[in-house]
């Protein structure tokens, strides 16, 4: 066998084997476990020590083999991964907790019944195993959907038209500047203030200070939604290339037709996902609902009269004032299940928005 002399390229420096980061990680985990055992083992200290050892040792070892620049690259990369994992912790933790605690409370009855007539007696019976858990969130789902839908119907036209004015007509005008300023201010309004605004507005208009109904809550949520919708739609309309507007004008098309038939269709997918984000932001609001729609345990389909419950207020009441103070666990189960449903509704809305975005997106392909 004639061994060809190993040719070393002057263009490469030392190369660490592919498995090296994994090996360092394994060693870090072992050392982290040992270090954490010294002060009393816990998952938190184990993860903390392992992570620290890996972030310090990994780049040093890689740097020693491959050179300073690769070491710095490894440090930056591991930090990015690390921060990403840290950012994921709350999300996964929330999802896990809600699933683990919420799924046992789910059932067809839970979805299709209200809390009407459910008293502490029933809960006590359920807690001692003598009866089923009664009561559900039907009324709260109806309230959430109706109030959110109304809020969307109010805020999308206002928000979209405002954005159209800002982008297409307001260029450099003082009114546009004022609107932009006030929209920014509106973004920062605390939700309870929006709720109190809607409540007092309707109190003034109708002369009845206790006039609570779904519509008042929808107005309160609109106050929170409008700035989000305006800001987002404005961004989306601005990125529509000016060339498309000019192309349309050059065909002898009027400005308003250009806006409705060229500009908005081009931007609609972005606007749709922006609206969904705005909905997701307000659907979980609790405080403004309490002061505007009140709270009920029975079904109320009419958003224009009578108090209404929504999922967030339902969760709040189940936790803060359990139906049976001696068997609070039953109410807690219902609250978790309601939280799970709320998250699912937001997820479904997101999927719908993605579908809309996909349908309307500018077409590509040959």
């Amino acid at each position, binding site marked *: 066998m004639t061994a060809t002399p190993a040719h070393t390229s002057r263009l490469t420096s030392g190369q660490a084997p592919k498995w090296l980061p994994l090996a360092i990680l394994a060693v870090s985990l072992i050392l982290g476990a040992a270090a954490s055992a010294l002060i009393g083992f816990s998952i938190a200290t184990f993860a903390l020590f392992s992570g620290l050892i890996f972030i310090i040792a990994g780049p040093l070892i890689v740097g020693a083999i491959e050179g300073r620049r690769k070491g710095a690259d490894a440090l930056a990369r591991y930090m990015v991964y690390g921060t990403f994992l840290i950012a994921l912790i709350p999300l996964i933790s929330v999802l896990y907790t809600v699933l683990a605690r919420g799924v046992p409370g789910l059932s067809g009855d839970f979805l299709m019944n209200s809390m009407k007539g459910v008293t502490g007696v029933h809960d006590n019976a359920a807690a001692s195993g003598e009866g089923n858990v009664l009561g559900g969130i039907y009324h709260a789902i109806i309230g959430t959907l109706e109030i959110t839908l109304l809020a969307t119907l109010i805020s999308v036209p206002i928000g979209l038209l405002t954005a159209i004015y800002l982008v297409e007509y307001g*260029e*450099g005008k003082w009114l546009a500047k004022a609107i932009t300023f006030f929209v920014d201010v509106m973004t920062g309004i605390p939700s309870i203030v929006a709720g109190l605004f809607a409540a007092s507005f309707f109190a003034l208009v109708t002369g009845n200070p206790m006039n609570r109904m779904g519509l008042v809550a929808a107005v309160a949520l609109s106050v929170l939604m409008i700035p989000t919708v305006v800001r987002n739609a404005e961004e989306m309309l601005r990125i529509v*290339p000016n*060339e*498309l*507007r*000019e*192309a*349309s*004008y*050059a*065909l*002898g*098309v*009027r400005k308003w*037709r*250009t806006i409705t*038939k*060229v500009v908005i*269709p*081009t931007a609609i997918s972005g606007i749709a996902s922006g609206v969904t984000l705005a909905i997701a932001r307000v659907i979980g609001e609790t405080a403004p609902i309490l002061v505007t729609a009140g709270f009920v345990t029975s079904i109320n389909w009419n958003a224009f009269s009578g108090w209404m419950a929504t999922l967030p207020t339902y969760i709040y009441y189940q936790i803060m004032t359990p139906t049976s103070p001696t068997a609070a666990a039953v109410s807690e189960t219902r609250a978790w299940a309601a939280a799970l449903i709320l998250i699912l509704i937001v997820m479904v809305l997101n999927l719908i928005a993605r579908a809309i975005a996909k349908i*309307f997106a*500018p*077409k*590509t*392909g*040959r």
Partner: protein
Amino acid sequence: MSKRIDVENLNVYYGDFLAVEDVNMAIEPRSVTAFIGPSGCGKSTFLRTLNRMHEVISGARVEGKVLLDGDDLYGKGVDPVVVRSQIGMVFQRPNPFPTMSIRENVLAGVKLNNRKISKTDADELVENSLRGANLWNEVKGRLDKPGSGLSGGQQQRLCIARSIAVKPDVILMDEPCSALDPISTLAVEDLINELKEEYTVVIVTHNMQQAARVSDKTAFFNIAGTGKPGKLIEYAPTQEIFNNPSEKSTEDYVSGRFG
């Protein structure tokens, strides 16, 4: 249909800034007129005043007259939308509507104005316009595919088809080939030669060979310096501009000794 354009003492402003000064020019029907000149000399700006696209930019305005077969475009009560439907424009970068198919793009001028058109008339208009833009054979099998899926040269010809589908009298082209490869450029130049049978064509170009190839008359614009207004230096038959210009600066520019 083809109409003549007469420009009389035209000054073009952006706010208080005088961009183009005192242009006088007569553009013959059924001819190709090329505007040449260094960047920033105001030829595109001037071109945009010929169909009132200039005023789309806020603060932009015009003094003087532009006569389309004797009717002043800037006369009192003239609707710029009517002007633009008679004087079409093709832009530097191909800009088909991304939400529309090839067919819808061609019909955009009709559909966006909500004019009713029967299916057979629409089919005929699409075919004639695409044939007129030398694009029919390339796209006839995929009219329902998005216009943005075409190559750059095809997109530009689609934009030309879109312009001629509204049956204008004049077509303005603002550097229509500057984003295209030589082969697509040739296709568009051939097309310009055919278009002048029916339309008055005005083209802005940075490519002097192109001006020499396609145009009957050429206008040379120049600018004295930054912040100064652009001026029409010389306007003459293309042969004369390139072979025997009467102005020294024209000769310097067309022979490459500029600046």
